[in-house]
């Protein structure tokens, strides 16, 4: 149905037609017409953040925890530039977002007008695509196209930059139907010959391992179900990247834990010694591969990915399958069932024996203490307390993030929101705001570091305003722990600028912002205080004071291979394990 309306009305109409229920934003001169339309309607709930970066992270949390597209509205100039970190974060983690930015009127573009910036120029490299809408006639098409591009294929953030005169102009609106993109048609069905070849390789393998990632989550809950079916049918071991946690149940016997730099010994050794890696929606990131020339030297590789540019980018694979994880796994399962490959059961049993041997090493072990809270212990107690609860986790970036990945258990997809690719400190609080907006009744916990929370803590005020009872669980080690750990490894323990001086009193801070503060300093108090945190129906800052010296293990130091890990209890002096070449790496 087409109707006459203004550009600003079209924005709201299109958001509604695209099923947007929550819009995260911040007003300003060049988006006032759109804010006026927001005022006049009730279908879309607007969440006023405290900083535009927070709006984007909140939309990411919303999107990742629901599978929907996150929506953001910010003003021109500083509004748009503040959104850039969030957009880049969403691009690297493949999160679907539509971000609408206001722009100065078309006749002023290029004149250094007030709050003008080249938004499409600035956001071109940090979006999947972006548009500057110069004519009202193009606006409805672009609005719908934007949602299509954001959510299809490999998802990602898009920006629509709308000059103020276009928001005021009147034109004909049409709905989202029958819009086919001229050029953009991602492939979802995998090539059947490649799928048959992959199943054959699966059947012949003696030391196979599934290496799964964020693409499984992107593909939707159905893909996780299919992954479980295929992994259980084959009986093979499975490991996941940081981004894929939850796609396969964390406490299942076939799951080896996370792999990579801070992954488990069993996952990394199994990758290293395998003869077949089945990569499902993961992208051979450098946190995973370590030294490329020593990466899985004996393995043939199958790679399922919807983005052809992820394939053969870093690691040359033997059987590439371009397609959507859900579609491809469905076909693989069908072919597996119909061909009934003759698996060498003895070889697989021997493979599991080897894996069990690595598992017995208990690589996540740490020395606990009665006096001081170990961060790992705090997370174990938290995990115990939330068992069986409807819980979502977000994180900041640092050691606490890695410990969360190691010590929490994820049984379902879309329950774990973390900044993996960009590693953005400050992601967790606003992301928790977004998650809680989508799941008002659920328990939403941000596993945080005391340095990270200082980056976006103004969003606590957003949580208070919208009565979002998010829990900010700070593992407060008084250091930028991850930085300190690298300084120990690489820079002779010279802790240059990595100590958190002048921290606020987090209990008072919570109080001042309208939340609840809880401090915990002794291991013996943990259970009671965690229970108190969960019981409170308001935003909580939980200041968990932990061992300032603890390091995160296992660790594959940069420039090393999977079989050259460092462990917690054995490392006395971690000062000289990295060579000159390794020191160059990040």
């Amino acid at each position: 149905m087409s109707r006459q309306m203004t550009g600003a009305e079209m924005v709201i109409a299109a958001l509604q037609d695209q099923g947007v229920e929550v819009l995260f934003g911040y007003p300003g001169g060049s988006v006032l017409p759109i804010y006026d339309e927001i005022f006049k309607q009730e279908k879309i709930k607007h969440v006023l953040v405290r900083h535009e970066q927070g709006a984007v992270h909140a939309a990411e949390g919303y999107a990742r925890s629901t599978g929907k597209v996150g929506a953001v509205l910010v003003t021109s100039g500083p509004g748009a530039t503040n959104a850039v970190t969030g957009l880049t974060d969403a691009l690297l983690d493949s999160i679907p977002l539509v971000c609408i930015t206001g722009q100065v009127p078309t006749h002023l573009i290029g004149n250094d007008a007030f709050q003008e910036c080249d938004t499409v120029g600035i956001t071109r490299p940090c979006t999947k695509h972006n548009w500057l809408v110069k004519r009202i006639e193009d606006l409805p098409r672009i609005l719908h196209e934007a949602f299509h591009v954001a959510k299809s294929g490999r998802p990602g953030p898009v920006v629509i930059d709308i000059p103020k005169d276009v928001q005021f102009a009147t034109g004909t609106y049409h709905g989202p139907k029958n819009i086919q993109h001229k050029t953009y048609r991602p492939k979802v069905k995998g090539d059947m010959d490649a799928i048959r070849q992959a199943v054959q390789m699966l059947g012949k393998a003696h030391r196979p391992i599934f290496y799964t990632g964020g693409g499984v989550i992107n593909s939707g809950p159905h893909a996780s179900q299919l992954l479980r079916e295929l992994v259980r049918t084959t009986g093979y071991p499975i490991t996941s990247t940081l981004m894929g946690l939850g796609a396969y149940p964390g406490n299942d016997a076939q799951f080896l834990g996370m792999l990579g730099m801070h992954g488990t010994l069993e996952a990394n050794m199994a990758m290293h010694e395998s003869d077949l890696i089945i990569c499902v929606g993961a992208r051979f990131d450098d946190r995973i591969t370590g030294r490329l020339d020593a990466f899985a030297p004996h393995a043939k590789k199958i790679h399922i990915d919807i983005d052809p540019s992820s394939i053969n980018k870093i690691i040359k694979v033997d059987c590439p399958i371009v397609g959507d994880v859900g579609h491809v796994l469905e076909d693989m399962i069908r072919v597996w069932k119909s061909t009934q490959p003759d698996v060498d059961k003895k070889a697989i049993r021997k493979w599991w024996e080897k894996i069990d041997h690595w598992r017995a090493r208990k690589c996540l072990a740490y020395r606990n203490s009665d006096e001081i809270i170990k961060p790992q212990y705090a997370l174990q107690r938290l995990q115990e307390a939330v068992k069986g609860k409807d819980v979502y986790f977000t994180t900041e970036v640092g050691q606490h993030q890695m410990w969360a990945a190691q010590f929490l258990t994820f049984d379902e997809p879309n329950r774990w929101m973390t900044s993996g690719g960009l590693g953005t400190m400050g992601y967790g609080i606003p992301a928790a705001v977004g998650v809680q907006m989508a799941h008002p009744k659920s328990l939403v916990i941000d596993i945080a570091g005391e340095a990270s929370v200082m980056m976006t803590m103004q969003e606590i005020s957003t949580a208070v305003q919208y009565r979002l009872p998010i829990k900010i669980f700070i593992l407060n080690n008084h250091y930028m722990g991850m930085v300190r750990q690298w300084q120990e490894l690489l820079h002779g323990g010279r802790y240059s600028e990595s100590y958190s001086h002048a921290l606020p009193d987090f209990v008072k801070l919570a109080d001042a912002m309208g939340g609840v503060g809880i401090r915990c300093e002794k291991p013996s108090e943990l259970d009671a205080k965690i229970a108190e945190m969960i019981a409170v129906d308001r935003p909580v800052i939980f200041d968990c004071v932990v061992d300032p010296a603890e390091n995160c293990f296992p660790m594959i130091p940069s420039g090393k291979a999977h079989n050259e890990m460092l462990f917690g209890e054995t490392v006395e002096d971690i000062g000289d394990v990295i060579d000159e070449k390794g020191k160059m790496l990040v």
Partner: protein
Amino acid sequence: MNTTHYPSAHIFQSPETHTLSVVVDNEPGVLARVVGLFSGRGYNIESLTVSETEHEKHLSRITIVTTGTPMVIEQIKNQLDRLVPVHRVVDLTVSGKVLARELALIKVKGKGEARVEALRLGDAFRARVVDATTESFVFEITGKSDKIDEFVGLMGPLGLVEYSRTGVAAISRGPEAS
């Protein structure tokens, strides 16, 4: 490729030069997307030409000559193909039937023996004189890039002032569209 980083598995591949033909929607910013992709990801551009080719359909053709290892070339093509306004990417080098030409305008200043020699060489290279004064010429020459390189090289000692090249335009041989 930065060799101080994780040693690369494909470092032993030797670089190749490929001519890519990229058909794009002729919309604002499309060239910036393509060029930004090359600079942002550290790929080489040896030559780049752009022009609208089908006005009614708003299509442009970007011809890019680039070098890289086979894995990098594959990556460049996939990255280009991923850009939303890109219709298709054709690697003319792989098809083995590439027809590539360039045009150059070359200004040479000189008198006496040098001037005569320049004119003689211009003739041999089928360069046309498109501007002349008593002490200078402008040659127009088309051909493969290496022919133009050679001609420019010869003009060097004969009074070369400056020259301007279009970059490569390329298409496949035979009846089919690429």
